[in-house]
């Protein structure tokens, strides 16, 4: 079999396996669906109750999607995939096959992208039902989501390969690191209501720029030119995340080989 064809076959095999596993883990799937849906409904109720805040609903939908749903499913999901491979001992097993490291990496990316797409459809269906609107370009919104998914998967590989040894650790680490990042990223509250000091700290949080980019398109109908700073930041962050992820994955393969 030609090497590029084999790479593609392996990539699809990994992606399909991950999706099948996700489908079989019914409880995980329920939480995966309930978390963003519940968040969206709760925020919807809050905004509906306060007429003056009604305009914020569009931004809330965007923030919950990029800041919370994709964070937990793509970043958390990738870390969990690596921790599970380690726990089951399947990682060394994979190393004895001709599986190309790039095929594994791409397989995880594709699986996470499909899961993210399902979350987008699910969350925006609810958001539109409760009165939120998507204001801007679908193409630009899609690009931002794609960059966000790549960034999260890259970070997921980095954290999973370097730190996560067991599934329990993934949950604890995501809660301890993730939730403060979400708050500081303007996922739940607008940046403007934070104290000056917090706002300064928030500027170095990549999630803030992800949120602002997607909110800019989805809630305020901004275009490429108006969002050039956020987009540039997102592209750089995506490249750094992927580089860190690939490097860490290589490190993980080397270490598991020597055990």
């Amino acid at each position: 079999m030609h090497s590029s064809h084999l790479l593609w076959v392996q990539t699809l095999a990994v992606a399909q396996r991950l999706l099948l596993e996700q489908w079989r883990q019914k409880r995980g799937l329920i939480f995966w669906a309930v978390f963003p849906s519940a968040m969206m409904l709760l925020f919807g109720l809050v905004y509906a109750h306060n007429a003056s805040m009604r305009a914020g609903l569009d931004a809330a939908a965007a923030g919950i999607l990029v800041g919370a749903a994709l964070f937990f499913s793509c970043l958390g999901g990738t870390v969990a995939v690596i921790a599970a491979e380690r726990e089951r001992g399947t990682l060394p097993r994979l190393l004895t096959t001709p599986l190309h490291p790039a095929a594994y990496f791409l397989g995880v990316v594709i699986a996470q992208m499909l899961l993210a797409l399902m979350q987008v459809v699910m969350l925006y269906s609810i958001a539109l039902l409760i009165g939120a609107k998507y204001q801007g370009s679908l193409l630009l919104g899609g690009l931002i989501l794609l960059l966000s998914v790549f960034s999260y998967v890259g970070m997921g590989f980095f954290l999973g390969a370097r730190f996560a040894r067991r599934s329990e650790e993934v949950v604890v680490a995501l809660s301890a690191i993730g939730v403060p990042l979400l708050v500081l990223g303007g996922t739940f509250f607008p940046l403007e209501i934070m104290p000056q000091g917090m706002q300064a700290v928030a500027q170095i949080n990549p999630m803030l720029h992800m949120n602002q980019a997607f909110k800019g398109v989805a809630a305020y109908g901004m275009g490429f030119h108006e969002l050039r700073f956020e987009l540039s930041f997102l592209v750089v962050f995506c490249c750094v995340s992927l580089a860190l992820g690939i490097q860490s994955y290589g490190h993980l393969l080397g270490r598991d080989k020597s055990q």
Partner: protein
Amino acid sequence: MTAALQIDSVHKWFGSHHVLDGFSLRVDRGEVVGLLGPNGCGKSTVLNIVCKLLPYDSGQAHLMGEPLSELGYRARGLVGLCTQHCALYTDLLPAENLNFFARLYGLSEKERKQRVAELMSSFELQRFASTQVGQLSGGWQQRLHLAVSLIHRPKLLVLDEPTSAVDLEARMGLWSIIEGLRDSGTSILLTTHHLAEAERLCSRVALMHSGKVVAEGSIPELLFCLPGKAVAKVQSQDNEAVIQRAAGLGWRVRQSADQISLLLPQVLSLREIVDALDGTEVRSVSVQPVTLEDAYFEFVDAPDGLIKIVNKRINQ
């Protein structure tokens, strides 16, 4: 015909630790070779090198006649590995696991379907076709694990203590499967701590100690090289006295729990043994032929001088 695996004077260091010290081994095609030795003697390192999970520092290794160092990813298609720990996807069905690994090896859809059906049938896994792997017993998981390692029809099958984590019944089942593979001409390198397993399955055995092979041959050859033809198992009120007397007679002694094993230079009757140990308060004596266990303890603990003699005799 070239050997399935030929390793010559391979050295491997982990930092300052010399793990493999001129290790050499040959596995001919269609042969089952057992690699036996105590924990930490370097067996796993050998297997990792054969499976291309580790590089070696010096020496030569050939897989199906080709230098292992030059085979790259292709080596992974030639070797199948089955370890004691079941490394499978527990949320998937048996056939889904087989299918997944078949795709990693690049089998075409037609080949894949055919091979998966073949393995599901020959490993008697059809009855669990709709059971997730995590719900199978340890023995059936290990059976599937072995099937997965054969999905790509490897030229060399590496079995790393394949039955150590399963119960007796499952072990017997796995032994039958491995015997079937052996009889169909599969080349197998097997490590195990169950000497009965090696006796049943292996056509040749290599005994390993401190990173090198200290004795190698078929089991009858190894037994022939022992400095004894039978073993007397002795129980006594005074073990020390028995040990001293046996040593005085030039018999090799091994003590385990409350029993002493004496390697007899020639076959003696019970009366002759009791007479030779006169005055040592012997409670019971039994005599049995030497086994692989005796060869294991003799050669793995043997001084270098004895090893040279053994290897010379085997070569003759």
